[in-house]
């Protein structure tokens, strides 16, 4: 009995020693202290004339951020810049990022990236090749990275701006893109959405557009239309909104409509959009876009009161027409100029007529361009704000 107990104890001891050794021998596998990494906040990717990739990173210096946030710089020392921007070229994105270590002190950590800016040159050449790295890399957080396409400026120049609004320019750019919630004039694409759209042949990618505005600001407005991963053209802010109305991505926006006297700014507070394909004789005959939206009167320059139901009905009609016009403009651009099914009609076909889809999959964009599009907008005006009309002196 005692003997057996001893054996048991020896076994336990051996096991304990072995597991301790096992723990110690691993070293500190993948251990990296926070102070030993460079936190990348923004990435810019562009393609050079010779086919090489130019990667720009914006790296944050936490200590500098902390001291600007708390308002106390370390006395005597000149204020450290909150971020630094470095560029490096390489055959691939990964190659460039790793080679960059020859000029950057610590390993670049991509998990903190907030914005990915694609250059115009790269976009024209096709983005699918470089996006591979971002999908493959385990550090990337797909759902927090905003993807934007730089127009008339290289990503490098864009990331070099120094704004007064936020110590980290990347956060500033990201926030202007986030503002689309109340503006609906820029398409906001998270990296995860882009990756999804890249794998979806029934819908072409649309990525928000960013441009430089003066020395210190950016302008995030409009969108870039892609066709099979290559930049096909641009949408202006209104066309972008037309696109967002059609796809149901409008959260809130201001639509200006003409009135008898002065102008009216309608505040859209709710909007739903739906696209569909009508089949006749086994062939797609008609593309439909249906939008239902709800709006308030936000501002009225005229002096009339807006209290009768007739007034509101007229407002609803005018608003509907206005929105319809914008959508029509976008549809025309997508069909005639870019020949790119950005609305996702193809997805509908794929879903409900899979057999037919198999046949037309490859040439769908051309088929799409030739089909008639029916647009229906159902606008409802619910409130006129706090007042029915302006306050007048005579009463």
């Amino acid at each position, binding site marked *: 009995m005692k003997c057996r107990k001893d054996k048991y104890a020896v076994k336990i001891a051996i096991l304990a020693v072995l597991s301790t050794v096992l723990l110690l021998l691993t070293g500190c596998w993948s*251990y990296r*202290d926070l102070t030993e990494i460079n936190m990348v906040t923004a990435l810019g990717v562009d393609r050079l004339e010779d086919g090489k990739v130019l990667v720009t990173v914006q790296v*944050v210096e936490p*200590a500098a951020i902390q001291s600007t946030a708390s308002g106390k710089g370390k006395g005597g020392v000149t204020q450290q810049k909150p971020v630094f921007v470095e560029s490096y070229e390489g055959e691939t994105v990964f190659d460039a990022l790793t080679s960059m270590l020859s000029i950057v002190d610590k390993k670049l950590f991509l998990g*903190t990236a907030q914005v990915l800016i694609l250059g115009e040159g790269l976009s024209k050449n096709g983005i699918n090749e470089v996006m591979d790295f971002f999908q493959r890399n385990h550090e990337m957080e797909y759902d*927090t990275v905003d993807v934007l396409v730089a127009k008339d400026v290289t990503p490098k120049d864009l990331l070099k701006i120094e704004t007064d609004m936020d110590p980290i320019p990347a956060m500033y750019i990201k926030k202007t893109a986030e503002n689309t919630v109340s503006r609906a004039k820029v398409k906001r694409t998270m990296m995860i959405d882009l990756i999804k759209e890249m794998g979806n042949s029934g819908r072409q990618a649309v990525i928000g557009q960013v441009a430089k505005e003066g020395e210190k600001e950016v302008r995030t407005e409009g969108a870039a239309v892609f066709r099979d991963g290559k930049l096909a053209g641009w949408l202006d802010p209104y066309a972008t909104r037309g696109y967002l109305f059609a796809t149901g991505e409008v959260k809130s926006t201001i639509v200006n409509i003409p009135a008898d006297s002065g102008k009216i700014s309608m505040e859209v507070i709710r909007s739903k959009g739906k696209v569909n394909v009508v089949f006749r004789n086994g062939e797609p005959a008609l593309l439909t876009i249906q939008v239902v939206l709800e709006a308030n009167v936000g501002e009225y320059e005229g002096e009339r009161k807006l209290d009768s139901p007739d007034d509101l009905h007229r407002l609803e009609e005018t608003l509907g027409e206005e929105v319809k016009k914008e959508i029509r403009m976008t549809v025309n651009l997508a069909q005639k100029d870019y020949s790119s099914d950005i609305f996702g009609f193809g997805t509908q076909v794929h879903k409900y007529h899979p057999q037919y889809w198999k046949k037309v999959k490859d040439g769908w964009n051309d088929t799409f361009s030739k089909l008639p599009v029916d647009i229906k907008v159902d606008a409802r005006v619910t409130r006129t704000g706090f007042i029915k009309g302006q306050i007048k002196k005579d009463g």
Partner: protein
Amino acid sequence: MGDEGVFEKIKNSNRAAKQNINSDGACIDENEPIPQAIEAVKARLGEIFSGCSDFMYREIVCGENNCIKMSVAYINGFVDKRVLNQDVVRPVLDYFSNAILQDKRNRIYEQLKECVVNNSDIKEAENMRQVVDNIVSGEALLFIDGEDRALVIGVKAPQGRQVSEPDTEVSIRGAREGFVENLLTNTTLIRKRIKNPNLKLEIMQLGEQTKTDICICYIKGIANEEIVKEVRDRLKKIKTDAILDSGYIEQFISDSRLSLFPTVGNSEKCDKLAGKLLEGRVAIFCDGTPYVLTVPYLYIESIQASDDYYDHAFFATFMRLLRLLALLVSNLLPGMYVALVGFHHTVIPFKLMITLAASRQGIPFSPFTEAVLMILAFELLREAGVRMPRPIGQSLSIVGALVLGEASVAAGISSNLMVIIVAITAVCSFVVPPLIRATMLIRFVFLAAANFLGFFGISSVFVAVFIHLCRLRSFGIPYMAPFSPLTASDLKDSLVVVPIWAMVTRPRILRQENVKGAAGVKRQEVRLKR
């Protein structure tokens, strides 16, 4: 026959040898008779108590022609002398002042016992062993010339401090009375709360040298007889020189003597102990200490407080959950921090990460080293606070707060965040006092695991600790009950506290039959009877 005789001899000589060693010279045989002649008694006691200046021996001579000789022996200061004089010496002198020695001596003894001595607490001692044991326990012994028996008169003076509020267990609501060092006072405090003859108090003595009074207390009909028997057996097995505190007993009777987790509970509060007894637990009182042990002790008891039952059930439930959270935080927080900072950067929100990185900037130590240093510094402060004389306390807290909190950060030795983490960890560990010691050590294990393997290490250690907890038993009752094994009816007083009017059944888990035997005895599968 011959063999048996030899065997007996060896056994006797062994016993004698043992007694010689144990009693350091004063060798008293189990059955040594009390000498009939009072002079012999005096001589023998003088021999046994030689060198004991507090041993008192008073001779009383009375009756006609000084025919009745008696003597009183006691330990000075241990007995109430006034009571001894009023109840024993004076009545004896009065009663026998004119008596003539005509009756048999027997009658004197009987008269003394029945009508002379004014004390209700009278016993008899029949041999020297009992005589000596009673003298050292604080009783007065009355010897009569010509008798081989002695009267044991309970005139023990009330000793020790007054009943007061315990320092270690404070509650907002509930009784302020705490146990004291005196065993009798303590049992009285319980009897006062449970007025029921079913409250049984079994007394026994432990400790070869100290002869400490131990009292097993339970409520017959509520406590599981098997557990009571088990407690009795385990206590009887204790062979030691001294029991100076109930902590000695705790270590002897624990199921798993090496486990960090307590399997024997202790309390200083009367109302808490009464509650435990009424749930069917067994209490072990130990003379000389205010800490009363309760068994079986389950894990869930560490997050229970007596306030929980006096307050609204919703608050009680909230507090229970809060305590559980505190328990987790105090175990895991430093390890979590090290894992986050060292391995899992992607799960930290961006802005928090900037704060973290900024606070870490310029710190020469790795997060692990930093955490260990700060925790050690805190534990040192805590220990110093316990050990040192009270009046110095304030200067210590100043040194602790300034040096650890401010200066180390200013000097760039530790980060602000680490100070906060250690502080939160410390506060949380104080929320669950029974587990402070276990938490203190396990925290370091979590830290080391986190430093090597990140969250994977933490979860591995967590699983290991959990397995250990599920394997533990306290007096045969699974430690993690009522969760494992799941006892639905006992969940009413676990993480959720139901109102007191809804707690209609007693804890079922304590009533189960077929509980496991003593530590080391083969384990039996516990089957729950439902």
